[in-house]
């Protein structure tokens, strides 16, 4: 954290992440909350960049801001109009409890870790991650990919109407 650019970038991104994160639960409209959530995802990606984690930052943008948010958009679109507000429900108490628990856990972890490692120059992480994924952790990687393949095939099976169903439907018409 020598260069002033990094310091400015860190405070901008942290402020943006916290501010938009607050607005996510203050916004009354669910789609506004979703827009703020996307901004908070993007600023989290910026925070990862200041921490020299370039691959994680790109994965954050690609998966969270690009895909998960679109999934949420479709989920909101397919829910009835009545449940599209972001108001308080009975889930606010367990939600607050879970958030507080996670914050306490991460806080203790952060206080317990010694952060006094020497500041090193930026090196790319993508080679390291690639070698680990296809070397040491290849089993976990393969299990995850098989799981995703199952999910894909399952989704296709769910939406597919078999040819006999289709013929019956046409006969009914």
């Amino acid at each position, binding site marked *: 954290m*020598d*260069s*002033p*650019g990094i310091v400015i970038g860190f405070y901008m991104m942290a402020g943006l992440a916290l501010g938009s994160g607050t607005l996510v639960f203050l916004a009354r*409209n669910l*789609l*506004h909350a979703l*827009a703020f959530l*996307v901004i908070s995802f993007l600023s989290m990606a910026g925070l990862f960049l200041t921490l020299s984690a*370039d*691959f994680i*930052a*790109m*994965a954050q*943008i*690609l998966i969270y*801001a*690009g*895909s998960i*948010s*679109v999934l949420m*958009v479709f989920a909101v679109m397919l829910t009835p109009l009545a449940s599209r507000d972001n108001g308080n429900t009975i889930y606010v108490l367990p939600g607050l409890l879970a958030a507080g628990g996670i914050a306490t856990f991460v806080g203790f972890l952060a206080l317990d870790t010694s952060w006094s490692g020497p500041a090193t120059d930026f090196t*790319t*992480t*993508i080679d390291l991650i690639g070698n680990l994924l296809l070397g040491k952790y290849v089993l976990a990687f393969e299990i995850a990919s098989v799981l995703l393949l199952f999910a894909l095939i399952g989704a296709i099976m769910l939406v597919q109407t078999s040819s006999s169903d289709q013929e019956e439907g046409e006969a009914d018409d």
Partner: protein
Amino acid sequence: MSENTRSATPMSRQIAEHHSLLDRTLALPRPILVMLSVLLVGFAMSQIAIGYLVISGQLDGKWYDIRDLGNAMISLDGVIQNSEMDSRIASTLAYLIPTLAGATGIVSIVGGWLLIGPWVERRLIAKFQIRQGPNRTGPFGLLQTLADALKLMQKEIIIPSGADRFLYFVPPVAVFIPAILGWAPIPWSPKMSYADLDVGVLFVIAISSLGVLAVFMAGWASNNHYSLLGAMRTIAMMISYEIPISVSLLAVVLLTGSTKLSEIVLWQSEHGVWLVMLIPFAALAFLFASTAEINRTPNDIGEAESEIVAGFYTEYSGMKAGLFMGVELANAILVGALMSTFFLGGYTMFGLETWIPGYLILATKIGLVYFLFVWIRATLPRFRLDQLMGFAWKFLIPVSIALMFLTAIESSILVRWDVPNFLSLGLIGLVNITSAAGLTFVWLRVLFRDTDLSTPPAPILTREMGGLQAAKVLRG
């Protein structure tokens, strides 16, 4: 002009009377011709002098070496570091100046293109359709875009009642974020790249996936069913076509062994080959999928004027609609730059880049790819939505994935096999072209095994209405 050549219409008379540029130049008065030839000789002599400087190597790395604008930034950095400034101020300046210079460069590329791009596109399409195009405002109609922009700005902005006012104002600006951010990793010369990220390819894919959200917001906030329908069509199309883009870029990464855009360009220049020759199907898939991703004809399903008014920006008026139209052009040259970097050798041109500035070569390639886009737009009709999705899911994705596996095998052979480049790369190119053609043929046979393509069925509506006979009956 011979007797049987008829110049009946004003149009054909205009064409017949049209003189070429050479004729018009030779018809200029004598003094101007002399001046022009003196200028030409001076230009040629200055080129020879520059050529001497380049060969002798006196120019390499100097700040006035405009073959690479990065040289100026590097020497400026050296001046700042050597000066007797406070180290904090010096590091701030060394950070701030290149950042602002690069950002200004990118924004001026996009902004400058938005000023002249619509004119270029309209003139080109007019040439394709044998008409003149905008030629009244200013010389050659160059000020037409400015006039259009002024007109759009004067228009009243109509906000539909019931529109979500917060989300309504964000999208016209938000759609420009990917169009500008995407320029960051593109190398214009060896030292001239705004942010030469190690994860450049991932950055490109991640940035292109952000455009979906702006489109959705525009469709949703308008409080109009047609807008929402257009947004949904666009989102479905963009999500589908992200997969062929990613798979074809994966083939590029497999062959070059790097996700850094500058190293992809260097690999192509070191091996003396463009990737489009090695993996032609991936290049074609990238080109076609990009036209879908940026909403250009033949894939402009999102704003298909003849079907759903203007798609997701139906309810936008004035300059807001203008921004949505402008972002299409900005995206077109961005895709041109990405296409040239990934598949057409980027700023290199088989050694020409030591003579001509690399950014000029890249700009020429961008222009050529853009011309291809305009050509496609002027000649091909629009796909239907289901045809477009079927094309992505049933054809592009399976064939791309199969060929990507082939590329993976080839690249692992390439790094282990010690033969001259032209032999191994030539073999790879040959294998890839034949396998792409064969796979396409076989896969299409499998897909259309139940369809008799020799006698295409009549469209259902025509069949049910009785076709021409019914029209005759109706007319009486």
